[in-house]
C-alpha cells in the first residue's frame, strides 16, 4: 500500500504547483456528556467550503489563512457550534449530543438543518454507514422509513418510496454527486453496481415523494442523493475488507464465500489541489432466483398457478427459461390424422380441447453465470481556483456481472458503465457537465436466449421438429392405452432425446453461441452503447439579496444518444438522439415562524410537450427544534428511452415497440390495422385508437412534523401524504394480421403482436403515512423505530397498477457507535418487517409473503492501529425471502471485516 501511495504522490506532484501552506490549527472535538472524542466530526471555516474531518479520536488539524477565524464544528447527532479562534493554540470543542442537527441541501437546495427541512427527508451519514450491519451502504436505505427495496441479485438492489417499486424503477431518481445514474439505454439506476465505493460515501439523502422541481423529471416517487467525500476534507488512505459466507441452507447453491475489498485514498497536495482514488471489488456467488412455480401467462395478467413440469405439459416455470415456447400439439395430431385417416376418428377424440405443450426449460441457475463480480474505480481531481470556487474533474467507472429483472431476467455480463463529470462549484453557483457512457458488454435476456438455444439444439417447428416428435410420441403412447399423464412424460422423453444436460459442455457451447450473437441476428445478445450528456448550472442569488430572501435559478440540457446497433432500439440505421431541457427557479423567505418556499420547473423533451411543475412548501417553527411542514409538490416523467424507441422481439410473436409514431408507419398500423389483443381474445375486434402516448404526472400534498421531545432525547418525525397520479404509462398488447387480411380471433395465436406504451387515462390516488422515533439513550446508545404505510385507492377495475407496496412496514434498530473501554465497542441491530403484498412486474406477478429480516454487527476498535474489526451479518436468522416475484431468493450473509482509517 505504501508503494502505491508513494507512486500516486509522485504522479500528483508532477502536475501540481508546490503548495503554499498557511497557519495550522490543531484541536480536538469531544462529546460534552461523555468527554469522549467524536470521530469524523466536521470542522469547517465558516462560510467557506474549506474544512477537515476529525480523526477517530476527534483530533483534527486545519489550515487557516489568518486569525481570528470562525470555525463551524458539527457532527451527526450533535448540535453544531461556531467557535471563533484568535490564535493557533490547541483548540478544544465540546459538542452537545442532539438529534436531527445535520445540514442538508437535498430537501430544497438550500442549506438546512435536517430538523427544519420542508419535506420529508431521510439522511444516512458516513457514521451510520460505518456502524451499519449491511455490507453495502446501499442496503442501509432499506431500513429508512417508507422505503421498499427490490433485490434482483446480490449487487442489484433498487430502492423506492411510496409504491410503484420494481427493479427497473423509472419513477425514482438516483443522483450521485449531481449525476443521474440511470443507465440511459437500459433505463435502470445502476447505483449499487456502478456508483460510489463504500468508503467514499459521505452521506445519502432520501426524499420520498414527488421531487421533479428540484431534480428534474422522473422523480415521481422520490429521489435518492448520494454524495461522495471531498478530498480536501476527507484525507488519508483507508481500506476495508470483508470476508463472508452466504448460501447457507440455500436449496439452489452450496455455501460459498463473499469477498469485498474497498479502498480510498484522499490527499490534499496543497490548499489548491487535492485528489482521491477509490476502488471496490466484490466477488461472490449470486443469490439464485428459484421460483419454480408454474406461471399462467396467456389470457391473464399473469399469475402463478398449480402444476409442475410433470403434471402440466405446458408448464412455464417463473425462473425456468425456454419453456415459454409453447404450441398446441393438435396441429401435429391433425397432421397425422390427415396422413393416416384410419387414426382420424380416434385422434378426434383427443383433440376436443387444446393440448398445449411447452418445451423443456432450464433453470436460472443453469444459464446464468453464478459468479457476481463488481469492480468499481472512481476518483476526482479537485482544484481550488479561489477560496470559494472549486473545479472538480471526477469519474466513476464500474464493471461486473449482475442480474436485473425488467420485462425479463437479464444477465448483465461484463457490463461497463462510466460517469464522468467536470464541475465548477462556488458556494453560490455551480456549472456541471457530465456524461454517462454505457456498454452492456455481453449482457443477454434469459428467456429469449434460452428459447433460442433450445431452437439451436432442436428446432420447434417442422416435420421432424420438437413438437412433431412430441406429438407423434404422445399419440403413440395414447395408442398404447397410456393415460394423458404417462403419454406426456413419454412424449417429452422422446422429443428430449439427446437434449444437452444443464451444465454440460454441449449445452454451454450451444448457449454461448446464441448468447454471443446480437438479437438483431437471431441471438440473445443486446448491444447497448447508449450515452447521455447533461449540462446544468445553478445560481443562488441569496447573498445578492442579503439573505432577506433566498432565490435561486437553474437549468439543464440533456442529450441521449441511443446506440444499440438495432438490438434494442429501432436504431439499425444509426444512433437516435433525444434532447431534453429544463429550467427551475425557487424563492424562499422567512416570515415570522414560517419559512415559505415557492418553486417551479419547466421541462421539455423534443418528442413531448413541455410541462411546468410547481412546488410550494412551508415550515412552521412552533418551538425550538420543533417544526411542522406542509408541502405541495408535483412531478412529471417523460417516457423512458425504451418507452420511446425500443424495438425488441421478445418471442411468442411479440414485439416490444416504442410509442413514437414512426413505429406506426414502419409496421403499417394505418393500412394493416392493429387491434387490442385482450378484446380480440374475448371476441371483440376493437381497433387501436392511435392516440399518442404522453408523459405522466403526479401531484402530492404532505403534512409533517419533526421535533425533539423528552429533554431533546427523542426525535419524532411524522408525515402523511396524499398523491394523485395521472396518465400512467403502461404497456398494452395489440395484434395485427400477418398478411394484411381481415382480423380474426385466430390472429390472437398467429398474428403479429405488438406491445406498445400507452397512458391510462383514469387517475389513481395514493396516500400514506410514516412515523419515526429516535431515542438517544445515555452512553451513546440510540434506539430507533419507524412505521410507514402506503395505500393505493380509486383503482379502476381491470387496471394493473404495479403499485407494489406493502400496506405496512416497520423498522427498529438499536445501536451504539462507541461504548465500553475507550469507546472501543460499537454495535447495531436492525430489524425490518414488511407486510405481504401483491407484486406486479413485467416479468412476473404474484403475492410476496411478509418478510422479517434481522441484521446485526458488532465492532471492536483498535485505536492505536486506527483499525476496526467488525463481525456482522444481514438476514442473520437466515430466513430466505424474495421481495419481488421472480427475483433472487435472499438468505443470510455473514462476514468478518477489517477496516483501516475508516
Amino acid at each position, binding site marked *: 500500500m505504501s508503494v502505491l501511495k508513494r507512486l500516486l504522490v509522485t504522479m500528483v506532484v508532477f502536475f501540481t504547483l508546490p503548495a503554499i501552506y498557511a497557519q495550522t490549527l490543531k484541536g480536538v472535538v469531544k462529546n460534552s456528556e461523555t468527554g469522549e472524542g467524536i470521530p469524523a466530526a466536521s470542522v469547517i471555516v465558516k462560510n467557506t467550503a474549506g474544512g477537515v474531518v476529525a480523526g477517530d479520536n476527534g483530533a483534527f488539524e486545519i489550515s487557516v489563512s489568518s486569525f481570528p477565524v470562525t470555525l463551524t464544528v458539527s457532527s451527526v447527532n450533535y448540535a453544531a457550534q461556531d467557535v471563533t479562534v484568535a490564535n493557533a493554540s490547541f483548540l478544544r470543542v465540546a459538542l452537545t449530543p442532539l438529534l436531527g442537527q445535520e445540514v442538508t441541501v437535498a430537501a430544497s437546495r438550500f442549506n438546512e438543518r435536517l430538523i427544519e427541512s420542508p419535506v420529508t427527508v431521510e439522511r444516512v451519514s458516513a457514521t451510520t454507514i460505518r456502524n451499519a450491519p449491511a455490507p453495502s451502504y446501499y442496503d442501509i436505505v432499506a431500513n429508512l422509513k417508507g422505503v421498499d427495496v427490490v433485490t434482483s441479485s446480490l449487487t442489484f438492489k433498487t430502492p423506492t418510496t411510496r409504491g410503484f417499486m420494481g427493479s427497473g424503477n423509472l419513477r425514482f431518481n438516483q443522483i450521485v454527486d449531481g449525476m443521474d445514474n440511470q443507465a440511459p439505454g437500459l433505463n435502470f439506476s445502476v447505483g449499487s453496481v456502478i456508483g460510489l465505493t463504500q468508503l467514499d460515501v459521505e452521506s445519502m439523502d432520501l426524499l420520498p415523494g414527488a421531487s421533479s422541481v428540484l431534480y428534474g423529471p422522473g422523480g415521481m416517487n422520490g429521489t435518492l442523493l448520494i454524495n461522495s467525500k471531498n478530498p480536501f476534507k476527507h484525507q488519508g488512505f483507508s481500506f476495508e475488507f470483508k470476508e463472508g459466507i452466504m448460501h447457507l441452507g440455500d436449496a439452489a447453491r452450496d455455501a460459498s464465500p463473499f469477498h469485498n475489498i474497498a479502498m480510498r485514498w484522499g490527499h490534499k497536495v496543497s490548499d489548491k489541489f487535492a485528489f482521491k482514488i477509490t476502488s471496490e471489488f466484490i466477488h461472490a456467488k449470486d443469490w439464485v432466483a428459484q421460483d419454480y412455480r408454474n406461471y399462467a401467462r396467456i389470457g391473464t395478467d399473469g399469475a402463478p398457478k*398449480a402444476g409442475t413440469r410433470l*403434471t402440466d405439459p405446458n408448464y412455464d416455470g417463473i425462473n425456468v427459461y425456454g419453456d415459454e415456447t409453447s404450441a398446441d400439439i393438435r396441429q401435429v395430431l391433425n397432421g397425422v390424422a390427415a396422413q*393416416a385417416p384410419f387414426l382420424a376418428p380416434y385422434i378426434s377424440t383427443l383433440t376436443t380441447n387444446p393440448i398445449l405443450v411447452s418445451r423443456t426449460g432450464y433453470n436460472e441457475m443453469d444459464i446464468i453465470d453464478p459468479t457476481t463480480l463488481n469492480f468499481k474505480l472512481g476518483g476526482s481531481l479537485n482544484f481550488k481556483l479561489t477560496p470559494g470556487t472549486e473545479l472538480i474533474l471526477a469519474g466513476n467507472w464500474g464493471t461486473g456481472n449482475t442480474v436485473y429483472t425488467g420485462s425479463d431476467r437479464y444477465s448483465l455480463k461484463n457490463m461497463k458503465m462510466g460517469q464522468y463529470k467536470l464541475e465548477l462549484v462556488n458556494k453560490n453557483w455551480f456549472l456541471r457537465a457530465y456524461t454517462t457512457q454505457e456498454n452492456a458488454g455481453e449482457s443477454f435476456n434469459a428467456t429469449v436466449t434460452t428459447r433460442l438455444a433450445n431452437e439451436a439444439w432442436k428446432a420447434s417447428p417442422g416435420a421432424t421438429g420438437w413438437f412433431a416428435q412430441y406429438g407423434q410420441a404422445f399419440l403413440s403412447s395414447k395408442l398404447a*392405452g397410456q393415460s394423458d399423464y404417462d403419454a406426456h412424460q413419454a412424449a417429452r422423453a422422446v422429443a428430449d432425446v439427446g437434449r444437452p444436460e444443464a451444465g454440460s459442455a454441449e449445452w454451454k457451447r450451444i448457449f454461448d453461441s446464441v448468447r454471443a450473437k446480437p438479437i438483431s441476428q437471431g441471438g440473445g445478445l443486446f448491444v447497448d452503447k447508449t450515452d447521455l450528456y447533461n449540462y446544468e448550472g445553478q445560481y443562488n442569488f441569496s447573498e445578492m439579496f442579503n439573505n432577506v430572501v433566498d432565490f435561486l435559478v437553474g437549468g439543464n440540457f440533456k442529450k441521449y444518444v441511443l446506440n444499440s446497433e438495432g438490438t434494442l432500439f429501432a436504431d439499425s440505421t444509426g444512433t437516435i438522439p433525444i434532447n431534453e431541457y429544463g429550467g427551475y427557479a425557487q424563492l424562499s423567505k422567512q416570515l415570522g415562524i414560517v419559512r415559505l418556499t415557492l418553486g417551479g420547473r419547466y421541462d421539455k423533451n423534443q418528442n413531448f410537450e413541455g410541462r411546468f411543475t410547481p412546488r410550494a412548501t412551508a415550515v412552521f417553527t412552533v418551538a425550538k427544534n420543533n417544526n411542522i411542514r406542509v408541502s405541495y409538490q408535483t412531478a412529471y416523467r417523460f417516457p423512458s428511452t425504451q418507452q420511446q424507441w425500443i424495438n425488441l422481439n421478445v418471442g411468442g410473436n411479440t414485439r416490444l415497440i416504442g410509442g413514437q409514431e414512426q413505429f406506426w408507419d414502419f409496421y403499417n398500423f394505418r393500412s394493416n390495422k392493429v387491434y387490442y389483443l385482450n378484446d380480440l381474445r374475448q371476441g371483440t375486434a376493437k381497433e387501436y385508437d392511435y392516440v399518442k402516448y404522453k408523459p405522466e404526472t403526479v401531484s402530492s400534498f404532505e403534512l409533517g412534523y419533526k421535533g425533539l421531545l423528552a429533554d431533546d432525547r427523542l426525535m419524532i418525525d411524522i408525515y402523511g401524504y396524499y398523491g394523485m397520479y395521472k396518465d400512467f404509462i403502461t404497456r398494452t398488447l395489440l395484434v395485427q394480421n400477418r398478411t394484411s387480411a381481415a382480423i380474426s380471433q385466430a390472429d390472437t395465436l398467429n398474428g403479429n403482436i405488438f406491445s406498445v406504451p400507452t397512458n391510462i387515462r383514469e387517475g389513481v390516488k395514493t396516500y400514506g403515512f410514516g412515523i419515526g422515533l429516535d431515542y438517544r439513550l445515555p452512553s451513546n446508545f440510540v434506539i430507533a423505530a419507524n412505521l410507514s404505510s402506503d395505500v393505493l385507492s380509486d383503482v379502476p377495475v381491470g387496471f394493473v397498477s404495479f403499485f407494489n407496496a406493502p400496506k405496512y412496514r416497520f423498522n427498529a434498530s*438499536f445501536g451504539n457507535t462507541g461504548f465500553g473501554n475507550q469507546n472501543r465497542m460499537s454495535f447495531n441491530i436492525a430489524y425490518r418487517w414488511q407486510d405481504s403484498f401483491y407484486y406486479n412486474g413485467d416479468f412476473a406477478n404474484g403475492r410476496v409473503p411478509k418478510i422479517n429480516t434481522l441484521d446485526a454487527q458488532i465492532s471492536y476498535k483498535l485505536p492505536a492501529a486506527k483499525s476496526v474489526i467488525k463481525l456482522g451479518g444481514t438476514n442473520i436468522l437466515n*430466513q*430466505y425471502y424474495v421481495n419481488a416475484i421472480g427475483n433472487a431468493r435472499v438468505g443470510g450473509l455473514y462476514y468478518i471485516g477489517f477496516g483501516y482509517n475508516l
Partner: protein
Amino acid sequence: MKYLKIKNYLLLLLIAAIVVSACNKDVEQFPDIQVEKPGTALAGIADTLASSARSNNSLYSAIIKKAGMAEILNNRSSAYTIYVPSNAAVKTLITALTGGAVPAGSPDAVYLGFIQSANFTEATAKGIVSYNTLPGKINYTTLGTTFPNYQAPSIFNPMPSLSALLRLTIFPSARNGNFVNNVPVIAAGIEAGNGIIYETGAVVVPPQRYLWDRINTDPDFTYLKAAVLRADSGTVAGNPASSLVAALQSIGANLTVFAPSDAVFKATLYTLAYPVVRAGIYAQARAGGLSEVAANAYADSEAPANTTALTGTPAVFSNPVLFSVLPAISVRGVIAYHILGSRAFANNFPATAANFPTLLNGSIAAHPGVVLQATFAGPMVTAATVKGAVNPTAANIAINPTPDPNGTSDQHYLNGVLHKINQVLMPMQLTF
C-alpha cells in the same frame, strides 16, 4: 443504572418481537394438479380373465399367455378396452383353424393343448389379442350410433417398420345392438383394474389381406377386377392418388365394396349390349339387301351369340370397340358407386331403408347414393340389401359371413369390408 434498565427492557422487547414474528414464509405454493391415474384397485385385465370367476374365458386367457401379453394387459398405467370371446367361441375358431383336426366337441384340455402347441404360433396369438385390445375405455352407452360405426385403433401394429403409428383398426358400434366389427358383444362390460372387458360371441379375427387381394384373385370377381382396372385407365396417369386399385390395396383406406359376381356383371352387360348388338346386325343385314322381316329374323338369331361373345368375358371392359359406348369415366362412375368411404358391416346397416353416400358423391355431391337395409334375428343379420338409384329392386347381399376367402358377406380386409351382391348398382340410367 436506570438507563441501563431501560436499555435492557427495550432490547428484550425488540428481541421478543423478532423471535415471535421472524419466520419468513416461502411464496405461496399451490396443491399440485391431480394426475389422472388410470389404474384402480381391481385386478388387471389379464389377472381378471385368469381368475376362476372367469372360467368361461380360460381358453382366451391361455391365448393371452401364449401371446406373452399378460404383463401388458395387467399394466396399471394404461387403460384398455379388450374384447374377449367365450370358450365356446374359441373352440369354434380352433376347429375352423385346424380344418377339423381338433373336432368340435373335443374336451377343453384338447383345445388348451392346441393353444399351447407349436401349431398355434405366438404371432397368431399376439395378432388376435392385440387386435382385440384398444387404448382407452370404450363405453357403448356413449359411443353414439353414427353410421356405420366407430373406427378405433387397436394396439396391433402389423408393420412397425412402415410406421410406428400404424394400427389395425377395429369397429365398435352401438347401432342395432352392441358389436365389434360384425361380432355381437354379448354381455355388459366387466370393469378391471386397468380397463374394461367385453365378451363377444365369436373371436374377432384380425384381417390379413387387402380388398384388392380378394378382388384380384377371386374367380367370381373377374369382371369386377376388369372394371376396376378399366376405371383406373386414363385417370391414374394424371392423378395416381385417384387410383381405385391403389385405394383397394392401401392400408390407409377404409372402404365397403359391394361386389357383383361375374354372372351378375355378365347378365347386366348382356342386357345393356343386346339392343346395340342386335341393331348393328340388323343394319348390316339390311345393307346386305335383306328384307326388313328377314333382317329382323337374322338379327334375332345372331344377336344373342354375338352379344355373349362380346360380353361373355371380362375383356369386355378393355375392348376398344366398346370404348365409345363404355367409356372409362362411366365405368369409373359405376365402380365408385359400389364403394362406400367407410367400413359398413351388414349389422351396421339400418333396419329401415336409408340412403348413404358412395365414393361417387365425391364427384356428384347431390347424388342420393345407395339405399341400405338389413333384417335382424336377434343380433344376427339374416338378410341385407343395397339398392342403386335406378335399379328397380334392391340387390341382395349373399349372407355368408364365413371368414375370407370363403364367405360372401362381411368379408373383412385390412382396408375395408366386402359384400357380394346380385345386381350391378346403377347410379343413373346407363345405355350403350
